[in-house]
């Protein structure tokens, strides 16, 4: 019985960590695509850059987790800035194709350059140590949760700042934003750097949890899964992408058939969302927020 309990809680914690990593990814893509309005179909590339940076620093250079994971965020942010430059000149569908290309290139680099372990990937990446022992999985989950809460607070802060306002204006109309004194290039780069570095951080956490990474974890399919979560939950909203990541992340875990038909189900869900709730679950005009508002205001009307 106790053994069974450990099994269940072990499985549960695996789901929790997977979901929170996805939530972090969806949250980071939401900065680029939701806040600044720049579509990206290659976000998993930065997730991968973070994971590989952390893995190589840890296994190859012998850096501890506490150094390799922050560096993963830094490297992903720098690469995000570099790869963001070609993205600054293109818009909409061209941007979608450019970012998709970036995703393929990065995956190919991991796959074909021996330094990155090729198709075999990189193994031997352990959970971090603290107090002279290896961190347990629940502790690791709490660590990621705390970091994620800090990131949400940062997002909230930025949302109320001139940076957030400048992003909104770029999302609405770049040329008009320029005419209002918004340095569009600078603020776009800022969104790419921040979004990429958070994805890189998620990659670092993910690598140390999986202990073994392969290029396939960071391919085009993964980029689409992240985008699905953002759109499903409500693009541009603060909690939507997180909710989307929780729902779409947990679904395949609770039932085997869903896992097998995962792409099909995601696709159908997305089609249904686009038809009936284009703003996502938590979009301004969607049913869920309307119900919540109704519940919130009903008592005051009665009283």
């Amino acid at each position, binding site marked *: 019985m106790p053994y069974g309990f450990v099994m269940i809680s072990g499985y549960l914690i695996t789901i929790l960590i997977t979901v929170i990593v996805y939530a972090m990814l969806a949250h980071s893509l939401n900065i680029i695509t939701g806040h600044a309005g720049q579509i990206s179909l290659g976000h998993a590339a930065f997730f991968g850059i973070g994971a590989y940076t952390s893995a190589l620093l840890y296994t190859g250079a012998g850096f501890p987790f506490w150094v390799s994971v922050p560096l993963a965020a830094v490297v992903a942010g720098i690469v995000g800035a570099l790869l963001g430059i070609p993205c600054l000149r293109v818009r909409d569908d061209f941007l979608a194709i450019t970012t998709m290309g970036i995703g393929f290139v990065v995956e190919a680099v991991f796959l074909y350059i021996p330094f990155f372990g090729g198709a075999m990937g990189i193994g031997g990446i352990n959970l971090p140590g603290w107090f002279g022992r290896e961190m347990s999985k629940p502790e690791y989950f709490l660590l990621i949760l705390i970091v994620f809460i800090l990131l949400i607070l940062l997002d909230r*802060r*930025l949302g*109320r*700042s*001139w*940076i957030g*306002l*400048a992003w*909104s*204006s770029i999302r*609405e*109309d770049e*040329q*008009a*934003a*320029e*005419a*209002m*004194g*918004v*340095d*569009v290039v*600078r*603020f776009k780069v800022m969104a790419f750097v921040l979004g990429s570095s958070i994805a890189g951080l998620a990659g670092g956490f993910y690598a140390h949890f999986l202990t073994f990474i392969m290029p396939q974890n960071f391919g085009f399919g993964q980029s689409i899964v992240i985008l699905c979560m953002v759109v499903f939950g409500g693009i541009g909203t603060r909690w939507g992408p997180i909710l989307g990541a929780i729902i779409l992340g947990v679904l395949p875990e609770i039932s085997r058939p869903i896992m097998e038909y995962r792409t099909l189900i995601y696709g159908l869900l997305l089609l249904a969302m686009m038809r009936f709730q284009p703003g996502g679950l938590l979009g301004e005009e969607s049913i869920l927020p309307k119900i919540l508002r109704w519940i919130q205001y009903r008592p005051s009307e009665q009283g």
Partner: protein
Amino acid sequence: MALLEIDGLSKEFDGLRALDQVSFATEVGEILGVIGPNGAGKTTLFNLISGIYPATAGEVVFQGRSILGMKSHQISRLGIGRTFQIVRPFQNLDVEMNILVAYGHRFYPDLWNSMGHFRKNEILKEVQGYIERTGLQSYRKQLTKNLPLGIKKRVEIARALALKPRLLLLDEPSGGLRFEESGQLMDLIRTVRDQGISVLLIEHNMQVVMDLCKRIVVLDHGSKIAEGSPEAIRSNPQVIEAYLGKSLRPEEEEG
């Protein structure tokens, strides 16, 4: 002293001369009209002044400083605000946020400043000032996509004013407006001028131009064909020709 001096300004699009050697200057505190038939190069002129695309040749000097080659956001920060011929408010932001975007021009250049909170009381109070100046009180919290055209045009002017401009470029402010709306907008443009902001006005509605401007520049096929008072422009044969075409040979005219 001239606020804006344009000298020999030209623009070619793939060999097509959209603007050819145009020169004129605006004085401080005046409303200068820019008229001309469709395709004369009026909007091209605005897009060159506001830095949306680079000029092929010529010079643009604002307050004694060349602004040619500067980016659009730098030019707007220097004090040139503009509106668009086809309105471009930030559709999914409310009127207040639209104005705030422009108000933020002084915070954007510095990373630390741009991390600052924009919903501060003193800032919102100043924004309220722009809302009142442009008569948008009852629309403050409405998304601009839901507003009628006349109000959207006011939002664009309010937004441009929040840049604290010395010069406003208004691209056909009365276009598509009903008679009363257009009259109200003219009053607004006059009050803006009275506050010491110069206006460069593209307009198709001759009534509006003749009423508002003491001086008018006429463009046709990318060249300046006339400049002067409304009376002089009205009786200028070249201007009449540009608008109405050359008079036909006498026998055809009779027939």
